[in-house]
């Protein structure tokens, strides 16, 4: 018992002594990938999606890579993204308080959905690179009519060609 407790503590203590991380360890960590999105607050397990009701959709990520996915009805696009490790931030965990879950839909899917509510429109006003097809991912829920929907993530950076931005050390 005592030994186990001590082992656990030692493991934590090692983590505390992190300044001495060696190059080899950090490279190994890097190979495991950088983990950014937290588990969605009300997430689902993508391996347990019922194939008979699953809805197909495609996420196009910021590099243009396409991810064909299946999602359960009722899941929000934010939950779908998180369940499938797509880098869509949901800073307020779907409380309509941040606009970091901003996505673009394809026109037919956009038209199928009910108009965004006032609160969603208010937050959309603050989103970067807003377009006519912008929605907040935490507010769009999957339904069978959306079969085949395409969801595109907005650009992650300012467009340097447009605003001529080049970072310089000051």
């Amino acid at each position: 018992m005592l030994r186990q407790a001590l082992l656990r503590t030692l493991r934590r203590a090692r983590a505390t002594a992190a300044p001495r991380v060696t190059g080899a360890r950090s490279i190994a960590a890097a190979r495991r990938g950088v983990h950014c999105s937290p588990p969605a607050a009300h997430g689902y397990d993508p391996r347990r999606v019922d194939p008979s009701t699953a809805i197909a959709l495609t996420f196009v990520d910021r590099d243009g890579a396409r991810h064909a996915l299946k999602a359960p009805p009722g899941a929000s696009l934010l939950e779908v993204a998180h369940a499938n490790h797509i880098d869509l931030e949901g800073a307020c965990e779907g409380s309509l308080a941040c606009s970091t879950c901003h996505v673009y839909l394809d026109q037919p899917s956009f038209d199928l959905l009910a108009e965004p509510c006032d609160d969603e429109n208010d937050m959309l006003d603050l989103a970067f690179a807003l377009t006519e097809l912008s929605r907040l991912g935490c507010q769009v829920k999957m339904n069978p009519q959306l079969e085949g929907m395409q969801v595109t993530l907005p650009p992650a950076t300012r467009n340097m060609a447009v605003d001529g931005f080049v970072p310089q050390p000051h």
Partner: protein
Amino acid sequence: MRIAVVGAGPAGFYATQSLLKRFPDCTVDLIERLPVPFGLVRYGVAPDHPATKKVINTFSAFVNSNRSRINFYGNVAVGDDQPLKPSHLKDFYNLTIYATGAAHPRTLPGVHIPSRFVYGAQDFAFWANGHPDIHSTSAQGKLSERIERDVKGTENVAVIGVGNVAIDIARLLLRPVDDLRSTDISPSVLELLSESPIKSVSLFGRKSPSGAAWTTAALREVVTKIPGIITTCDHGLLRKDMEMSQLSRSKKSMLKVLSEKTVDLNSAELHHHEHQGSRILRLEFLKTPIAFSENVESVNLRLQCSQPAKDMVGEHLNPATKSCEVRDTIESVCGVVFLSLGYVGGQGSGYRVGWANGKGAGIIGDNKWDAETVISSLSIPDTMNAVGISHWLSSTGHRFVSWEGWECIDAVEKKRGSEYGRKDERVKLESVEEMLQVAERQAQNMNGFNQQFRTHCESRS
């Protein structure tokens, strides 16, 4: 490769995220002036906006799942006036990114600010959020005590500025105090507000309504979602603004909220509410403060009123003179005034991200965009074997807080919250010394366990 990120606010965390992705073999040391992370998410965002603060969960999960590549050093300020200088970082790291937030709040140029009754919006936010700096002492006394003395017993408060932070101040002062009990607001502030006789908060803006800087979301909340607050403004002015053709969608919806959900300044309805003792939020436009004069128990605020000239467009600024026609001046007597005029973007050396870079404005998520933009274009000379600051810290004996130390502070604060009767919220430690002691106790316990473990192993071998 070892990189320093100075400042652990949103920009610091987003920069760390981008760095870890872009440089797969880098380690990031997150160096923060305060013992605790999260910057203005913890100390700026209003206590009654817990959803906005949830981003802290995202940042914490990110650190915890990349523990071997991120080190947090709290209570370590970097500056030419600090023991740890920017030049040290050049020796210790392959690259340094500054995410230290905005440098200074804007003030009123040419207007004498009295030492009593007038404070910055940041002072208010720090006071409500229990920032350790608020307990610092100057020649005039302890800042928290001065604010408390002036806010206590005050019926009318003025805020100079018409942005979201101005609305935060008004909402916190006017909303029923019971709504605040279960938030993470500082207990001493809660106590003071529960006895507050406050009747009105007036927000003064230089421009006409369409020029207000608040977001529709913040306006809609205070105007439609908080019971017990009646909001009023001049509907005549509003109508003039709404007739303008070149308004954006967001300005249009903002003006719509004002016209549909507020009471006209000259209406009988407003007098009725005042008579009933409702708390009033006054949104005043085209008024520029020009002088303050101190009384014994209050301050007189002199304002210049303008009227939109005939040829004015957009925000009613004359395109030729960039100003409005001056009509007259008025005086308003207030118990306390908060200046909420925004921030000057940061200055300093090195690569800068977030509020330290650019204009010192924008919401939390904007900093992600900014960090990605800056980091995506960097290349680092990986020529030197960077050692980081751990040697400097141990050789100087500088007290610092690790990520585990912060987790202990976090646990202590949550425990105090539940002892105080808060279901989901904390009571913050407000003194740096107390935070350091909690973190150091954790480190000592850890050393003790290590010692015990070693003895245990040795005795078995």
